[in-house]
């Protein structure tokens, strides 16, 4: 009993548990459909690139992982979520493609400006959106979710405007690189890894993590101890916007186009879900980046598994919504209190029986 409690109390229990569960489902599915039982884990090289369901999950999960990096900080510092990340991804992608193709051009093979300008432009746009959100939350004290609601609806529309209501195709190999392959490795995996590593190093080598958690746990006390709470919250939102910008570029590069209506659609839910699944409280405070990252890939594994089981992409949100509800319910204080009372009652009943 005690041992069980120790294991379930571990920081990364929830995400790892979910991951194992998903893998188990996959194994059962493979056995049931008569495939090799560990089909899920097999990695092979076809056409000179890595191939396999695991690779697919790592690849497709890149955007969510990148978003989760920013979202974790936002949740920790401001006890709220940034629901605009999906839309901001789309805006960043549109802006980048618009720069690369030139305004009003719907399809191009040649780049109008150097690749770097376009990509940096897109990422900068993401930061700008983050700064807008951050300003509202940190300096005007608007509730995070309401503040980000503005860009949640406007960013996609602005993206459409930038692209003149068209889907802008950039059919250029150098642009395809971000969503394609580096050698045999899918580039998105590398980009996600770099983002995660940079953030990990930042957290390890600077006091950023301490500052953010401190502000998230007790804003007043942090101020007395010399932290500029508003500035720290602001920075978190900018980082979140930056992450959305990067994810947007990757998303656009995958399909060599800026499809404003579809890039980043529903990604805000995935990113929030990743953070919650990673064992982080949506009420802010302590966070565990590793948990969020595992959470992100778990989400992707769930999505991929759902697709493998024949669930369409339109229906998948139903399952995810249910998972979100279960996780937040488990985290909810009244539920915890109820469970405690129940277990106390059970213990009492046991004690009574023994006596």
């Amino acid at each position, binding site marked *: 009993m005690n041992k069980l409690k120790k294991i379930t109390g571990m920081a990364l229990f929830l995400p790892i548990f979910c991951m194992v569960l998903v893998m188990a489902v996959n194994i059962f599915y493979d056995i049931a459909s008569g495939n090799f039982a560990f089909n899920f884990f097999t990695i092979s090289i076809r056409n000179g690139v890595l191939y396999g369901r695991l690779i697919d999950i790592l690849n497709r999960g890149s955007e969510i992982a990148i978003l989760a990096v920013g979202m974790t900080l936002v949740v920790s510092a401001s006890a709220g979520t940034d629901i605009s990340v999906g839309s901001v991804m789309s805006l960043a992608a549109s802006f980048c493609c618009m720069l690369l193709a030139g305004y009003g051009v719907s399809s191009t093979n040649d780049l109008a400006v150097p690749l770097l300008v376009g990509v940096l432009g897109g990422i900068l746009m993401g930061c700008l959106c983050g700064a807008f959100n951050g300003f509202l939350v940190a300096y*005007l*004290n608007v509730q995070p979710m309401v*503040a980000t*609601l*503005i860009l949640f609806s406007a960013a996609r*529309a602005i993206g459409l*405007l930038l692209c003149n*209501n068209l889907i802008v195709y950039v059919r250029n190999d150098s642009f395809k690189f971000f969503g394609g392959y580096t050698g045999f490795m899918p580039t998105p995996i590398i980009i996600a890894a770099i983002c995660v590593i940079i953030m990990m190093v930042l957290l390890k080598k600077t006091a950023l993590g301490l500052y953010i958690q401190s502000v998230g746990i007790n804003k007043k006390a942090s101020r007395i101890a010399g932290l500029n709470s508003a500035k720290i919250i602001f920075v978190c939102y900018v980082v979140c916007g930056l992450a959305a910008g990067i994810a947007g570029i990757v998303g656009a590069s995958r399909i060599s186009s800026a499809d404003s209506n579809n890039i980043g659609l529903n990604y805000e839910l995935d990113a929030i879900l990743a953070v919650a699944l990673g064992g982080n409280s949506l009420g802010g405070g302590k966070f565990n980046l590793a948990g969020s990252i595992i959470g992100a890939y778990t989400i992707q594994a769930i999505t991929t598994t759902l697709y493998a089981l024949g669930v369409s992409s339109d229906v998948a949100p139903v399952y995810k919504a249910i998972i*979100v509800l279960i996780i*937040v319910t488990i985290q909810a204080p009244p539920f915890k209190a109820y469970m405690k009372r129940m277990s106390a009652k059970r213990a009492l009943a046991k004690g009574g029986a023994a006596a």
Partner: protein
Amino acid sequence: MKGKKINSNTLLLLITIGLFVVMYAVGCVIYSSKGFTHLQTFLNILINNAGLLCIACGMTCVMLTGGIDISVGSLVAMDCMFLAVGMEQWGLNAGLLCVLVLLIGLVFGLVQGFCVGYLEIQPFIVTMAGMFFARGMTAVICTDQVSISQNAFFVGLANMKFEIPFGAYTNSKGVLQVPFVRLPVIIALVVLVLVFLMLRYTKFGRSLYAVGGNEQSATMMGLNVKLTKLKAYMLSSFLCSVGGICFCMNTMSGSVRQALGLEMDAIASAVIGGTLLTGGVGNVIGSFFGVLINGTISTLVKTNGKLLSSWSSIAVAALLCFFIVLQSVFAKMKDSKK
């Protein structure tokens, strides 16, 4: 002491009404050649936004408690799809389907309200889950676009015209145009009046204000805060379903991507109408004008003809942003006064 002073809340409402008048007047001046001055243009705004009005009324109630409900857009999509598929593919009775839709709304709201009120989960998270759930369920019912054309009863309802005895004019072809509204407008206006009366004259209505004003005080004064919240979300989802039926009468179809971003319009309408995001202040009359402003913007964009439709959602978002900042400034001013 006597004589109502203008406080910041009334000021917000006045700004909104003024904004609407100015906006409409500008439209009349610029687009008078395109018929903007006719009464029918105004009535069309009502017809096109009847569903939104119902939803905004529900949203206002939820926002009064300090909460928010972003599931409404998806719920409308689910309702429309359910109606369309029910009529076209399952061949069910339209009346029965409408009742079912309303029931679905109630149950949907019950679950959300329980999570917010009794489990104390943030309203945003709960209703976001609700939003994705409803959108996904829409796809579960059917992934294609389904048009309603065979159900005579429903088509009849949707095509009903209620003529207005004044404001008629003869158009360029010499045909007399009598201004009219459709059934959804009547439903929406009835909802508006009922919710207005409920907020003013029932214990539940006043409890919504009390809970939003100060939750702790409300508890101390003996109100059941949890139940009030639960009821608020049920009401929102129910009115959303009513709005969904109105919406369906306009579009006569169901599709997975229907009513995308409608929650945004509803929230924007309420906020523009003077409902405070922090709860406790607001009125459906304000939300009514919020909806009108919303409708006027999209009508202006449409009448222009050259502007992209995304301009209207950007304009609404900009307005929302403006009012949020305004509220924040007012709140700061109030704080510094104390």
